[in-house]
């Protein structure tokens, strides 16, 4: 018992330490990528304090952190003090607690560690059968942190940010759930280790066998992590800072860390659910738990490289596409992502149900091809039918109609050919 708790504590310490450092350095990476995309050099001055060694600006996160710690912890007078403090704590706690069920590697070799009589699983709580539900539940708690913060701030911008994020996160939880159900159907387990195991033993990542589910999951993860183009809860240009407008100092940094953790979690999930987790052909071996030290370390490295690549993609995406308008965001969730998710789910369910028949008729390659074909057809249908591209540009016929309505003493801007869009 004692050994197990010590083992768990060591894992937690490693994970929390790694995540916090990771979050700090991802802030630097984010600033670098932002700068490079805009043809700037980015932070490259802060190195070792009191020396002239610059180290490409790697000291920047330390300086940022110190700045936050020494900032005045301003609490505006009009806020609800208890909730105002509780909100960032709850969001950070939830963001960290998710990592209890997320594997950060595979296993260590049997008898690899002296003094431990069992094989060490690189996951804080191994063998939790409701892993995915737990993870889903906790990621929903993030909404509470955001809404609480927005509500307790007692400011219109914060409240609007909180409201937006509640609507957004709830809307995107559905397509995300549908994409996850597809994965669960294929693996038959809710354990993330098991999901990786299945992908490793078949050698087919779910991104290949369920392309539609993959795209839906990636889009929904962007929305869940509130990253651009879905960063409406904190749209600086519209809402000052969104739900954390009134925050400063340590409480603000808790929010910011939680936001980065959400992004890291999303990358973990994309990597684990759809990109094979620690699996890479030829390096990491199959799903067997009988690993050498080389394989164990290779698995950790592969997983981390995947996560890093996804995070870089997240950061590049931020500068590639403009933010959605709120109605576009909602219609994307309900009118495009949800139907597509259902299509994917039905396809996967049929596949799982009739696997033996289909396999004998089409072969496993044929099944994958069929999934891709379904994905393409569904995507094209969604593109043509769905109102993703609402037209709100100034058009002459609209303008004429407006003028007529004004002449008749009516309110302008309601009717008109292009104003009768989906909204």
């Amino acid at each position: 018992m004692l050994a197990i708790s010590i083992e768990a504590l060591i894992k937690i310490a490693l994970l929390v330490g790694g995540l916090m450092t990771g979050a700090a350095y991802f802030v630097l990476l984010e600033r670098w990528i932002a700068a490079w995309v805009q043809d700037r050099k980015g932070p490259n001055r802060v190195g070792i304090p009191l020396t002239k060694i610059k180290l490409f600006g790697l000291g920047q996160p330390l300086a940022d952190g110190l700045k936050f710690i020494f900032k005045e912890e301003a609490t505006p007078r009009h806020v609800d003090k208890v909730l105002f403090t509780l909100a960032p704590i709850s969001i950070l706690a939830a963001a960290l607690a998710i990592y209890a069920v997320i594997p950060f590697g595979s296993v260590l070799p049997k008898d690899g560690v002296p003094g431990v009589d069992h094989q060490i699983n690189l996951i804080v709580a191994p063998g939790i059968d409701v892993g995915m539900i737990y993870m889903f539940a906790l990621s929903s708690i993030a909404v509470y942190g955001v809404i609480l913060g927005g509500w307790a701030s007692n400011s219109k911008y914060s409240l609007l940010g909180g409201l937006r994020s509640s609507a957004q996160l709830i809307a995107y939880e559905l397509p995300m759930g549908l994409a996850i159900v597809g994965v669960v159907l294929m693996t038959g387990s809710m354990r993330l280790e098991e999901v990786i195991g299945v992908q490793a033993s078949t050698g087919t990542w779910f991104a290949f066998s369920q392309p539609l589910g993959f795209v839906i999951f990636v889009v929904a993860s962007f929305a869940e992590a509130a990253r651009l183009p879905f960063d409406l809860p904190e749209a600086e240009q519209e809402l000052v800072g969104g739900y954390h407008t009134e925050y400063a100092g340590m409480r603000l940094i808790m929010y910011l860390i939680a936001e980065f953790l959400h992004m890291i979690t999303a990358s973990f999930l994309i990597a684990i659910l759809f990109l094979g987790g620690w699996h890479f052909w030829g390096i990491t071996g199959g799903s067997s738990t009988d690993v050498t030290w080389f394989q164990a370390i290779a698995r950790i490295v592969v997983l981390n490289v995947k996560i890093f690549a996804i995070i870089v993609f997240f950061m590049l995406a931020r500068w590639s596409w403009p933010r959605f308008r709120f109605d576009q965001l909602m219609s994307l969730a309900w009118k495009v992502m949800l139907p597509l998710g259902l299509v994917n789910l039905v396809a996967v369910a049929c596949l799982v149900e009739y696997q033996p028949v289909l396999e004998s008729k089409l072969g496993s390659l044929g099944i994958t091809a069929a999934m891709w074909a379904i994905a393409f057809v569904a995507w094209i249908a969604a593109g043509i039918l769905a109102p993703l591209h609402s037209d709100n540009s100034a058009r002459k016929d609209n303008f004429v109609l407006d003028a007529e309505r004004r002449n008749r003493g009516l309110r302008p801007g309601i009717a008109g050919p292009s104003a009768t869009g989906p909204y």
Partner: protein
Amino acid sequence: MKPDDAQVNWVEEPKLGLTGKMYLPLIFSGLAVTTKHLFGPKMTVSFPEQRPEIGNPLIYRGVHRLNKDEQGRVKCVACFLCATACPAHCIDIIAAPSPWPDRDKYCESFTIDELRCIFCGMCEEACPVDAVELTSLFDLTGRSREEMIFDKEKLLSVYDMTKDAEPMKSRVMGASP
């Protein structure tokens, strides 16, 4: 504005084609642009170590200087045109009868408050004898407000400092000496 006004030129946004409606192709083209810039050349100048290049020092508007003529005398004839033209009212001149026979007045004191100055160059435009000019020194700093109020000596010393790098504009641009 009437909708059928002939002056109004209605330009309508082109409608999205099929690839546009598919959304993903546009997403990837956006990503391609950002990726290209990620590795592209950078515009930033690492300032203290690396000085930015000033396109044409003759038309740059930095710190002022008071020009001297061939005999080393201040060129200013205390006409107050620059002080009148200055929108920030930061030029202060005290005129005195000139000790030299070729002009009536000269400036006994000439101060420019560089903190109030907006570096618009109006003084330079107004001066009939090209006595006040703006140099290309841009990194002007000081530790107190007093230090940033440039008097005649300081402005003349700026001329001595910059006269080799930046010849007097009137001569370069072909005006009377």
